[in-house]
């Protein structure tokens, strides 16, 4: 047992009025995500203003105001600790650009926490009408966030208060909802909580003594330890390439799978350029080995800066080296496209760090929204809300992988008209054999 806790990432989704920010704030506040001095300062101010009774809500408001001013950097990286884990929380924003970030960014979560407003009318007006919550839940599922915890929030405000009957009603309805998204509700803990009052968040609440399941904190501790893909072959998509005087060429990027270490012979896809890694550095410190999640720079021999660029992928030349994709087949969900998508459509794909136009060469099938079966072979077009299999051909050399093998290189956002119009998961890749 090391001193360092295992790191996991959680995405919190829910309707704007579900109390998700209050709940998230509560966890961070109680579990050590906020600088102690900041809390002390706020608490002192609150006491001076005789705000003792509203202390918690008041502190949250203050923190929110502070975040709006953007004056502390650490606050952007929301963190708290459970018994077992060190957690980073993403409070899913309503911003349209967040979806692309969910796919290409560091935001990939290990677990989704869905917050539901359990109050009379609140539930019906909340999740049921909120397309965004559904979209986020669907995206989380599609992008491989396998685990979910559901919080039935605002139990202090149900009629009657802390109503078991209401809880059971919500569990039944949300279960059905989650099933439609793709999750197995039998494996989702439904925790009745009050993010505002603190019931069942950290400590078991006597108000909810009929509930025998885990508290939110316990449910978070029960999350399966994520498998870190360090045993897979190396994939390191390049973000930047530097030329450093006296050292040479230094590509920089995040290790997505596998490890990179000095002495390793790496191959850069899609070009196939192969060279030896002289050294690896992170935060100006030399590393003997970099693991998935590490943002590193590495020094390579006899390679000019112009031979490498953002979007290229470093891989181990002896272990499934990255190659150019001649074409690939993906399951695509159309999300925000105002028109019809037909064969020949060539929008820009954001996949890992690459940003390249890709042609929808052949829409192979359209999938029925109810049965999951093919409803139409070779449809003329796909429109908003449709899902289908599409054979795609990059317009420039590019590295992609199947989602099953290398998840971060196997999911993409389709960008057009300045927004994400579709998302996709790659099922098969036909690779080109290196010509050189």
């Amino acid at each position, binding site marked *: 047992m090391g001193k360092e806790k295992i790191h996991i990432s959680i995405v919190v989704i829910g309707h704007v009025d579900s109390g998700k920010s209050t709940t998230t704030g509560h966890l961070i506040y109680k579990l050590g995500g906020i600088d102690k001095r900041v809390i002390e300062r706020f608490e002192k101010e609150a006491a001076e203003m005789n705000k003792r009774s509203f202390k918690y809500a008041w502190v949250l408001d203050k923190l929110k105001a502070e975040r709006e001013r953007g004056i502390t950097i650490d606050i952007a990286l929301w963190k708290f600790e459970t018994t077992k884990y060190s957690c980073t929380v993403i409070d899913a*924003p*309503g911003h349209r650009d967040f979806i692309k*970030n969910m796919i290409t960014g560091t935001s990939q979560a*290990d677990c989704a926490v869905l917050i539901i407003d359990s109050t009379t009318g609140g539930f019906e007006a909340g999740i049921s009408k909120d397309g965004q919550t559904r979209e986020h839940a669907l995206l989380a599922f*599609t992008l491989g966030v396998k685990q979910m915890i559901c919080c039935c929030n605002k139990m202090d405000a149900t009629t009657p208060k802390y109503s078991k009957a209401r809880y059971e009603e919500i569990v039944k309805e949300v279960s059905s909802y989650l099933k439609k998204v793709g999750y197995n509700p039998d494996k989702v803990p439904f925790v009745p909580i009050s993010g505002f009052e603190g019931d069942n968040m950290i400590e078991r609440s006597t108000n909810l003594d009929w509930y025998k399941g885990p508290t939110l904190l316990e449910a978070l501790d029960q999350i399966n330890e994520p498998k870190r893909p360090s045993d897979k072959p190396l994939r390191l998509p390049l*973000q930047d390439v530097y*030329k450093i005087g006296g050292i040479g060429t230094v590509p920089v990027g995040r290790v997505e799978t596998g490890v990179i270490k000095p002495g390793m012979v790496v191959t850069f896809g899609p070009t196939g350029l192969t060279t030896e890694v002289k050294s690896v550095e992170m935060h100006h410190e030399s590393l003997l080995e970099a693991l998935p999640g590490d943002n590193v720079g590495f020094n390579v021999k006899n390679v000019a800066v112009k031979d490498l660029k953002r979007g290229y992928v470093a891989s181990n030349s002896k272990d499934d080296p990255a190659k150019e994709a001649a074409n690939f087949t993906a399951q695509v969900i159309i999300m925000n496209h105002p028109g019809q998508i037909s064969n020949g459509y060539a929008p820009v794909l954001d996949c890992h760090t690459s940003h390249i136009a890709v042609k929808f060469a052949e829409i192979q099938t359209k999938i029925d929204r109810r*049965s*999951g079966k093919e409803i139409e072979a070779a449809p003329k077009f796909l429109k908003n809300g449709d899902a289908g299999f599409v054979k795609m051909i990059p317009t420039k050399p590019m590295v992609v992988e199947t989602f099953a093998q290398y998840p971060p290189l196997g999911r993409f956002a389709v960008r057009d008209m300045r927004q994400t119009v579709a998302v996709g998961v790659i099922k098969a890749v036909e690779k080109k054999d290196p010509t050189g």
Partner: protein
Amino acid sequence: MHSNLISIQNSLTFPVVTQVMLIYVNKLFMFSGVTAPGQGVKVLSSVVPETSTTDVAEAPAADDDDDSDVDLFGEETEEEKKAAEERAAKAKASTKKKESGKSSVLLDVKPWDDETDMVKLEEAVRSIKMEGLLWGASKLMPVGYGIKKLQIMMTIIDDLVSVDTLIEDHLCVEPANEYIQSCDIVAFNKI
């Protein structure tokens, strides 16, 4: 930051509710007595189920149970319409504050090399002004081999500022690209 990769070895078939999820926004989830045969969702999966309490990606296949008599995607009934209207009216009447619709974004701004003037780089970033964009705190972070990157906070109003546009059309083009090689989003949160 961790990448938090999840290794999914199974082949997921998309949940087929997609269309509905995205289009029948107002209809989904009205359970009040709409009836029609629904076939439920089939998600094919080749995963060997792992025993766990929260690993829920292997969705149930064909075993539809109690929800098979609920058509989530059917037409809105009169009752539902009425209920929806009532809710809308209630929501309007509510004096509750609207959501701020703001996000907090932490951005990595990367220079061309170890000799890039990071002061000028930061000036170039902060000189970009648009409605709904507020630059916040920043710091220089070591990358390796003497290279530093600028990490900077910004607060944006969701409806006014696109982060992608900011990066693609302002930060990575002239004149800012004299100093900036690329930008990456480190954190993106609701405020």
